[in-house]
């Protein structure tokens, strides 16, 4: 058996929400353990170059980081609590199973990287705060399985962690405000962004500006990107999509087209960008729901079509003692994640008291802004029309769109569970993390979006991370 760390509050994740939750919980008097897959705090949003052997790196703001001062403040408080022995920090570990037995939560972990030397520990806690974040939502596009095609967030993470670019000439496509910092980060790091293709339209923002107006920081952020775009002459083309990635054994170019409001391709608008070596895609984000779902948390469909956990005003889920913060309660960005993390950490540390939620008005305002963004940047209703029968949908098991629609139409695979059984879509290494949303859309039918039940079924991953059979063999209870 691995060592058991017993604490009052366990926090999963050390990104904006997790760091905030850990700091708030410890400052409210709880003994805290933080389990994180990363080797150092920050998560995806505050990802930065390795600190090992580089004291002081954390003080230098890398490219494209917003809210870095917030990070430095939380990090200082986190480090102080660690030094004082009030936070047990367990980096480099992934939770492969979370259990709730009796009054305690138990987290079983495994090293994220075999050679990292991270020693798996079992964490037992009275309360649990899950802050697992999310990752870029993807739609299959003909040619998207060619090397050189990446998740937009993957490109950003690459730059933040490594300080270099994964290529020279980029096209960034999809929908949502996140495409802007990705493109700006590439340009600032010396890459050429040939175009940013946004399937939605800025005019779609207008009805939602009232909600957005309450968050001036966001507007400033937008203006900063506008300046970067102007300086680097990055074309921002709305109502445009990539219809195909060209190339034989790697991405060499893209074909694009204009679309209408529903995402239908407008005939005669095809255009080709040649000499492209990296294509980045992002269609919003998918919150990582497997741990909440495995613990029985009640879920709902958010405005962006994502499955999210339901929480009360203290960030507590439907499972008593289990708190959620950050993207798992609704994709809303780092500022909101920090606010939620602070509320969740404080509440988890003192569940019996009525600690007032810090900045409830700010949380509400950021949620309204996030909703506005979701409405302004929907997944195009007609996206399934872009597929050809031989387009790969499940990258792991190499299942094509044709195989999926055949299973749906011939064998009645009208839910994600049947679809997985019949086609193996979502059954491979990533367990449907990448293709889950698209497969759920396809099983629901042309033009359809998946309901909460289908996405919950897709998020059911009895092992939340791959774990060695040898490690399983050491489990005896």
């Amino acid at each position, binding site marked *: 058996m691995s060592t058991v760390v017993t604490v009052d509050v366990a926090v999963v994740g050390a990104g904006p929400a997790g760091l905030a939750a850990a700091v708030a919980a410890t400052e409210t008097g709880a003994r805290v353990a933080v389990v994180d897959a990363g080797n150092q705090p920050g998560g995806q949003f505050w990802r930065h170059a390795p600190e090992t052997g*580089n004291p002081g*790196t954390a003080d230098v703001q890398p490219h494209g980081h917003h809210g870095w001062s917030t990070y430095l403040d939380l990090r200082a408080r986190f480090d102080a609590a660690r030094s004082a022995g009030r936070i047990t920090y367990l980096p480099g570990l992934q939770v492969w199973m979370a259990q709730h037995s009796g009054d305690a939560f138990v987290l079983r972990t495994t090293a994220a990287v075999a050679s990292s030397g991270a020693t798996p520990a079992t964490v037992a806690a009275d309360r649990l705060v899950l802050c697992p974040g999310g*990752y*870029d939502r993807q739609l299959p596009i003909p040619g998207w*399985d060619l090397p050189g095609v990446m998740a937009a*967030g993957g490109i950003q*993470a*690459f730059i933040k962690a490594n300080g270099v670019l994964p290529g020279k000439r980029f096209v960034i496509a999809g929908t949502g405000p996140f495409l802007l910092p990705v493109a700006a980060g590439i340009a600032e790091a010396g890459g050429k962004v040939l175009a940013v293709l946004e399937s939605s339209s800025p005019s779609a923002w207008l009805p939602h500006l009232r909600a957005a107006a309450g968050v001036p920081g966001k507007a400033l952020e937008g203006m900063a990107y506008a300046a970067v775009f102007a300086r680097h002459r990055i074309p921002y083309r709305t109502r445009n999509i990539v219809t195909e990635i060209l190339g034989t054994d790697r991405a060499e170019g893209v074909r694009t087209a204009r679309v209408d409001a529903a995402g239908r391709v407008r005939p005669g608008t095809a255009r080709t960008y040649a000499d492209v070596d990296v294509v980045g895609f992002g269609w919003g984000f998918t919150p990582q729901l497997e741990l909440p779902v495995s613990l029985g948390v009640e879920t709902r469909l958010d405005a962006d079509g994502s499955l999210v956990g339901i929480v009360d005003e203290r960030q507590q889920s439907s499972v008593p003692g289990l708190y959620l913060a950050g993207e798992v309660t609704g994709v809303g960005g780092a500022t909101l994640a920090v606010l939620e993390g602070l509320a969740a950490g404080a509440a988890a540390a003192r569940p019996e008291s009525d600690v007032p939620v810090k900045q409830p008005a700010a949380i509400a305002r950021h949620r309204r802004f996030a909703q506005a963004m979701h409405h302004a940047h929907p997944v195009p209703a007609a996206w399934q029309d872009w597929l050809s029968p031989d387009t790969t949908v499940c990258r*792991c098991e*190499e299942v094509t769109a044709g195989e999926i629609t055949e299973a749906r139409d011939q064998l009645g695979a009208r839910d994600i569970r049947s679809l997985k059984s019949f086609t193996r879509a979502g059954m491979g290494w990533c367990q449907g993390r990448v293709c889950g949303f698209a497969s759920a859309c396809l099983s629901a039918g042309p033009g359809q979006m998946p309901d909460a039940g289908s996405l919950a079924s897709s998020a059911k991953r009895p092992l939340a991370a791959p774990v060695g059979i040898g490690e399983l063999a050491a489990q005896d209870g």
Partner: protein
Amino acid sequence: MNTQPVTISFDGRPLAAAAGQSVGAALASQGITAWRSTRKGGKPRGLFCGIGVCFDCLVTVDGEPNQRACLVEACDGMEVEGS
């Protein structure tokens, strides 16, 4: 950014990298975009999600198979093999 140079090997060939850089980044910055073939179609694969979610970028590191190149930090003398 740490620029301390290290040398790893990729499929037996020496490859310059920076300490702490991910193996995926070390490969990509040398123009190597694919290092694995899929089981069914034999299609080339490299980095995709970049954050450990998709498992497209699997490599063998010092004999340990199926490691995510986007997560493994390069260090001097590390032997990396594609599949």
